[in-house]
């Protein structure tokens, strides 16, 4: 919509165009310098070999990408990333839906429950990573406190390769599922009562109503959450950096952490930029694939 502020007259738009530019330029200025330009420059950087200190950047074409593709460590990191994203997102969505269903009931204290569930989302990832390191301590931590009475000895969570990634995923889900709960709750509460009542009248039991009415009605939200949660999990950095620094033995090294290592610890600018481009393309591909396959199955009323 536009609201006209001048009588019909040729040239009346200059005033408005000027104001438009004045209002839009600040934002575009910052986006141009710190978001758009970097993408272009990063593509270029991914094709040089440079230690970020010497004045010369050596153009090497696709050598950085070739080096990464032939590096088994890179593929381990690649696999780790998908392990983290796949399990993390799957658990987050499933648990969030379950909790949302629970909180959708008229229970006293459910608003309190909703706030508690959402609160980890607003806490600093670095801070809670530190807390969870202590929680995971195999001799004096919270997990050990819970497992000991059950006779289970706590695994050496963060120092053993097999358990490190599960530990990270647990923390990731704990911190992030509250957001999905809030969104799912809103979705559940917006499902038309008539639809549910019609299904009951048609003889559907609760399970059938869930599968045939609730889930389809929630599909736009599931779709939205899937995209945002997947993209978010690709970018999970503070958890990895603070809890494991990618270890032990690269067990929790993910693409974004590897990018940081290569760029700001080893100062291999070209390799870091190449990893960033790979991550970018991956995230773009995941989004496009979702838009294609999942949106077809999304039910809009």
């Amino acid at each position, binding site marked *: 919509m536009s609201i006209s502020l001048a009588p019909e007259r040729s040239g009346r738009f200059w005033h408005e165009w000027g104001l438009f530019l004045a209002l839009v330029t600040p934002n575009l200025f910052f986006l141009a310098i710190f978001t758009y330009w970097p993408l272009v420059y*990063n593509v270029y950087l991914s094709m040089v070999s440079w230690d970020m200190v010497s004045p010369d950047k050596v153009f090497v074409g696709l050598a950085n990408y070739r080096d990464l593709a032939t590096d088994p460590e890179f593929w381990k990191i690649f696999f780790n990333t998908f392990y983290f994203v796949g399990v993390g997102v799957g658990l987050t969505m499933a648990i969030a839906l379950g909790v949302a269903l629970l909180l959708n*009931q008229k*229970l006293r204290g459910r608003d309190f429950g909703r706030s508690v569930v959402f609160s980890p989302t607003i806490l600093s990832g670095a801070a809670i990573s530190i807390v969870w390191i202590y929680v995971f301590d195999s001799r004096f931590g919270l997990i050990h406190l819970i497992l*000991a009475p059950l006779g289970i000895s706590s695994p050496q969570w963060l120092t053993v390769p097999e358990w490190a990634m599960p530990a990270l995923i647990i923390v990731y889900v704990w911190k992030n599922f509250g957001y999905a709960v809030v969104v799912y709750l809103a979705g559940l509460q917006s499902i038309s009562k008539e639809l549910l009542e019609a299904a009951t009248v048609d003889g559907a039991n609760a399970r059938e109503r869930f599968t045939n009415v609730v889930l389809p009605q929630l599909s736009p939200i599931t779709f939205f959450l899937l995209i945002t949660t997947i993209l978010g999990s690709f970018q999970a950095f503070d958890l990895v950096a603070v809890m494991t620094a990618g270890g032990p033995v690269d067990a929790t090294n993910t693409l974004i952490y590897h990018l940081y290592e290569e760029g700001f610890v080893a100062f291999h600018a070209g390799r870091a930029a190449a990893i960033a481009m790979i*991550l*970018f393309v991956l995230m773009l591909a995941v989004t496009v694939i979702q838009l294609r396959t999942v949106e077809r199955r999304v039910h809009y009323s």
Partner: protein
Amino acid sequence: MAQIARRESVALGTVEVRPGRIGSIVGTVASYFLLVLLVVIIGMPILWMLSASVKTLPEIYTFPPVWIPPHLRWANYSDAWSMAPFGRFYVNTAIMTFFGTAAKLFNGITSAYALTYLRFPKRDLVFLVVLAALMIPPQVTILPNYLTLGSLNWINTYPALILPEAGIAFGTFLLRQHFLTIPREILEAARVDGAGHLRILWQVVLPLSQPILVTLLLLTAVGRWNDFLWPLIATTTMEMRTLPVGIAFLLDQEGNTQWGQVMAATVMVVIPLLVLFLWTQRYLVEGIAAGALKG
């Protein structure tokens, strides 16, 4: 039959029911149990953090631990304060958050207003250009931004912490969505009263957008405060570091040994946002719910 269906509905949460009827008491009890379990599971790590922050070292290295120690060791907090320049961390984080949030909101409001209410050739293309920024994730920009700021000698300064995040794409989209819902009549009435665009923005559009502005403000502020990767790269001395980055270094220094002081430090990092959250949780949670439904 209807009774059974109703009871199952309570259990599956597909229908909102007032608890109380005989048949649904079991379902209700189960739900309350689950609710309590949920709150306990989510809250436990936070309680664990608070509990350890007032324990002595021997108390921490005792198993099984006591949740509330007989004497609260508040000295952990003063110890933590002197282990790292927390005063500086707070100042830096506050400055970064305040100016970063202000910049983002300013840019979001101005571009959303222009994109909604002002005419411009290919205006929709401009909007798409803004939205395209959503497709560019931070990791692609950190190295170039580091180099850009480096060439200006702005690494380890406040501009480095504030400027790269001054642009806003998603917030612009949200605000524009909301502005589009403001009834024409109100805007036309203001125009008839002789108001120019800036007056309309200030006296009509913004007051009518309070809920979404508050939500956006809170989400942006939380994001800025908790930002980790960029401040990690953009700062090189402890005096310029922010709270999240600072405590990560503190952990490095102290190792996994001084848990009392380290937990006290994490409490200090987390408390401001926790307090803010307790105060504004309704706005935040309902704002997110509303935004997600519209989008």
